[in-house]
């Protein structure tokens, strides 16, 4: 089960309103390569892993991705604080704003709502680990 600690994994202290940047950063929240997809992928795949090392790693990394999700949410929240109408218009933020105002909504930078299509969980450990390597993009 999950326990919540009332802190961010790393502090977020943004003082300058910047909705243009928020529109880009939000893709790390609910986009195809974002933290929501990462946490859900690992926390879903762990059930069918055959070895304790794998169950442990996927559980713990999935949990850490939730920490990251929280930080990105905090970033977007702070980037859109005290938003004025002029700032919304100047930043081209109207299309997000009309549907969500300054609410934090899991979507990609292009506006696609988060979908489980961004992840895969096939029940086969080799397949799933390959999916993870592809998703993490470095490997």
């Amino acid at each position: 089960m999950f326990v919540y600690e009332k802190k961010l994994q790393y502090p977020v202290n943004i003082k300058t309103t910047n909705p243009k940047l928020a529109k880009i950063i939000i893709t790390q929240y609910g986009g195809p390569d974002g933290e929501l997809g990462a946490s859900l992928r690992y926390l879903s795949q762990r059930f069918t892993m055959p070895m304790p090392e794998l169950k442990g790693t996927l559980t713990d990394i999935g949990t850490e991705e939730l920490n990251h999700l929280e930080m990105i949410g905090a970033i977007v929240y702070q980037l859109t604080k005290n938003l004025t109408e002029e700032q919304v218009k100047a930043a081209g933020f109207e299309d997000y704003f009309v549907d969500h105002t300054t609410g934090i909504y899991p979507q990609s930078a292009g506006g696609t709502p988060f979908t489980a299509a961004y992840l895969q969980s096939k029940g086969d450990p080799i397949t799933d680990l390959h999916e993870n390597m592809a998703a993490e993009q470095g490997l």
Partner: protein
Amino acid sequence: MTKREMLLKKISTAQFAALDTQLFLDTHPGDTESVEKMRKYRNLAKPLIEEYEQKYGPLTKNGDDSNTWNWIKGPWPWESEEDC
């Protein structure tokens, strides 16, 4: 940064080291040297957490619940003192 934020950052630093070591132990459970390191980092964090919770309120719901206002009162992690 406020004093509270500075203390929280110290806690996060120690916890991050402990967390990374614990992740390593997920795939290397026999590594006694790393167990020692993890304990060391956790012991670094422990007094700082006690100090923080005593001064500013609980970090988890499992802490002191004698004052239930303390859990819900701000600032929440995405806020600063000015927001409250």
